[in-house]
C-alpha cells in the first residue's frame, strides 16, 4: 500500500475508534448518572426506583436507631425538608446544620439512602469563622 494511503487509513481507524469510545462514554455517563436535586424538587418525586443525589442541610433532631440514622434534609435557603433513612458510615463532620450530599430513592413517604453514600461537607476548611 502507498505509504500516504496507509497513514490516512491508520488515521481514519484511530479517529473512528476514538469517536466510538467517546460515544460510549457519553451514553453510559448519561445512563448511569444520579440527578442532583434539592429537597423542594424531590418532595413530590414518585417511587419509581430512580436514584437522586440529594443536597441540602441537616435539620436538627436527627436520631440513630441501632445502625440506622434517621435525619431530614432541608433546602440550603428554605424550609422544605425531606426525611432520609440511612445505613452505613456516618462521616465525622456530620452534624445538624451541615451541608450533605446523599444518594436516595423514594420509598413510601420517605427516602432510603444508598449505603455509604452520605457525604458531609466540612464547613471549616477554607471558611473563616469569626473567632471569639
Amino acid at each position, binding site marked *: 500500500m502507498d505509504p500516504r494511503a496507509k497513514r490516512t487509513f491508520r488515521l481514519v481507524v484511530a479517529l473512528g475508534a476514538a469517536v466510538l469510545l467517546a460515544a460510549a462514554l457519553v451514553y453510559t455517563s448519561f445512563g448511569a448518572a444520579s440527578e442532583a436535586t434539592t429537597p423542594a424538587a424531590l418532595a413530590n418525586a414518585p417511587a419509581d426506583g430512580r436514584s437522586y443525589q440529594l443536597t441540602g442541610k441537616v435539620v436538627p433532631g436527627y436520631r440513630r436507631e441501632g445502625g440506622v440514622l434517621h435525619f431530614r434534609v432541608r433546602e440550603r435557603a428554605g424550609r422544605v425538608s425531606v426525611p432520609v433513612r440511612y445505613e452505613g458510615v456516618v462521616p465525622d463532620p456530620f452534624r445538624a446544620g451541615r451541608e450533605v450530599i446523599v444518594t436516595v430513592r423514594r420509598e413510601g413517604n420517605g427516602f432510603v439512602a444508598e449505603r455509604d453514600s452520605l457525604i458531609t461537607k466540612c464547613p471549616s476548611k*477554607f471558611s473563616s469563622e469569626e473567632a471569639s
Partner: protein
Amino acid sequence: MLTLGRASLVLALAIALVGIVSSLYGARSGRAEWVAVGRRSMYALFGVLTVTMVVLEAAFLRSDFSFRLVASHSSTTTPTFYKLTAMWSSQEGSLLLWVWLLSGWASLAVFATRKRLRDIAPYATSVLLGFGAFFVSLILLFAHPIQLLDPAAVEGNGLPPLLRHPSMMIHPPMLYSGYTLFTIPFAFALGALITRRLDASWIRSTRRFALLAWLCLGTGILLGARWSWSELGWGGYWAWDPVENASLLPWLTGTAFLHSLMVQEKRGMLRVWNVSLVLATGILAIMGTFLVRSGILESIHAFGASTLGVPFLVLLGVLMISSAALVLTRRRELRSEARLDSVFSREAAFLLNNLALVGLCFVIMWGTFFPLISEIVTGRQASVGAPWFDRYTVPLAIALVFLSGIGPVIAWRRATLGNLRRNFVVPTAAAGAALLAGLTLAGEPKPTALAMFCGAAFALGAVGQEFWRGTRARRAATGESLPLALATLVGRNRRRYGGYLVHVGMALLFLGVAASSAFQHVRDVRLQPGQSVRVEGHDIRYVRATGTVDREKLSLGALLRVSKDGHEVATLRPSRGYYPSPDARQFGPIGRYFEGEATSEVGLKTGLERDVWTSVEPNIDSFGRMVDGIDRRFPLADAASQGLLLGVIAERYRLDPPPAGFRMIVSPLVTWIWLGGLVAISGALIAIWPKPKRARAWVVAASRPRLGRAVGRA
C-alpha cells in the same frame, strides 16, 4: 509586623509586573541587561513572598490573634506542629503558599537556565512572573491573608480536628509543588513556541523540572490516600472526589509527557504531541487549583462559595486560547523528523502508553465535570459514581501496566521476531505463573483483579530481566560483586534504571489496589463489651470501652482484640475524639463537646499480607440527659472544671457503655500500595539526581570564581 506583611505583598505585585515588562522588553530588543532584570525580579519575588510567609508563620506561632487568619484557624491550645501548618488550611494562606512555592521553583528554573536557552528563557520568565502576578493580585483583591482583627480575639477557633494529622505538614505543600512545578515546562514550551526554537533543547532543560513536578504531585496524591486510609473513618483511600481527581489529571498527562519526550529526543517524532501535552499539563495544573478554589463542583473537600471562580476562568480561557493558537501557527516547525516504522517498536509502545494515559485523563475529566456537562445539556445537574469511573479506568489501568512491561524491552524502530522472543519470554512466563497462582489461590474468580496481577507480573518480569542482564554484563566486564555491579549499573544509568524502578513501584502499587479492591471484606456491626465478630478468618472481640480526656477533647472508644486461628495477632484501639464547639453559650460548657467537631481515630494493624482496619462510633445519645443536667448545674464551669466533668462522663462510658457501632475491614495487600509508592518515589529521585560528571562540573563551576580570585591574589 502586620504592616511589613501587607507591604511585602504589594511590593511582590510591583516586582512581578516590573519583571514581566523587562523580560519582554529584553527579549524583543535583545538587550541582555533587561533580561537580567526580569530574572532578578523572579528572585526578588521569592524573597519578598518569603518575608510575608515568615510574618504570617510567626503570627501563628505566637498566637497573635490580632491577625484575623490566626484567630480563625489556630488557638493557644493548638499544638506547635499544627500552628505551623494551620496557615494553609485557609483559602488565603493556601493561595500564599501556592505563589510562594511558584516563585521558589521558578527562581530555581530561571537560575538553572540563565546561561542556556537565551531566546526562550525571557519569555518563560515573563509567563512565570505572569502567574505570580495573577496569584498575588487574587490574594490582594479577594483573599488577603494579613488582615487586622480589632479588637484582637481572646482565643482563636483552632485548626479543624480533621486536619490534625502529620500529613498536613507535607501533603498540601507536595501537591502545590507539583502544580507549580508543572507551570515551568509550560512556560518554557510557550517561550519555545513564541521564538520558534522548537528543537529538543527546551525539553532537555526542563525535563528535570517536569520529573520533579511528577514526583511531588504523585507523592502528594499518595500521602492523601494514605491519610484517608489510616485516619479518616470511612475505610478507603480513593473516592473519585472532584478534588482528588483534579490532582490526578495533570499527573496523568505529565506521565504521558515524560514517556513521549524520549521519542522526541531519540527520533525527533511526536513534537506537536509533546508540546501539546506540556501545555495541557500546565493548564490542568491551573484547572486543579481552580477546582479547589472555586467550589464549582460538589466535593467532600468543601471549599464553599468563593469569588475566585471568575478570575480563574478568565486565566484558563487565556491560557487555552493562546496555547492552541501558538501550536496551530507553529505546526510547520513542529513537523516530525521521522515516521513510525512499525507498530512493533518502542515508539509505538510509548504512543499506546500515551493514548491510554490521555484516555484515562479524558475519562476522569469527563466524570469530574459531568455535573456541569449534564446541566448544560439537560438543564439538570447529575453526577456519576465510582462504578462508572471503574468501568473505564480499570481496563485502561490494566493496559497501562502491561505497556509498562513492554516499553522498556522492545526495540526502537522495528522489533524483529528474535528481539521479541529474547525479551518477552520471561515476562510472559511471569504473567502465566501469576495467572495460575491467581486461579489456584483466589477463592472466587475476579477477572479484572486477575488481569491486573498478570499485568503486574509481566511488568516486574520485564524490568527484573533488564536489571539482571545489565548487572550480569557489568560483572562479566569488570568482575565486580553482584551488589556492587548492580549499584554501579544504576548509578551510571540513573535515568534509565530510575525509570525502571518507577515501573516496579507502579506495578506493586497496582497489585495492591487490585487485591484490596477485589478481595476486601467489610462488616458493619453493633457490639457490647464481650461480644465478638468474625471477619475473613479474624475473630475481633470488643474487650472493653475506653474513655479519656485531654487538653483539647473527649475521646470515647474501644479496646479490640484480634485473633486468628486461636492466636492473638493484634490489640486495636479505635476511638472518636469530640472537640468542643466554640459556642459554649448556646450548647453549654459540656454539651458543646457533643455539638462540635468529631474525628475518628482508626484502629489499624498493617501487614504485608493484609490490613485489619477498625473504626468505632460510640452511642452518645444515652448521655443526652446526663449532659443537660451537668450543664444546668454548672453553666459557668471553667476549663479546669470542664475537664473534671468530662472525666466523669468518660468514666461513666468506660463502666457502662451502650452498644457501639463498628466498621471492620480486612483488606489484602494494602501495604503494597504504600511500598510501591515508595519504590516509585525512590526511582524518580534516582532519575532526577544529576549524573556524577555533571555534579562534578557543577562543583567545579561553583568553585571557579573562588579559584580565579585565589590565583589572581597569588
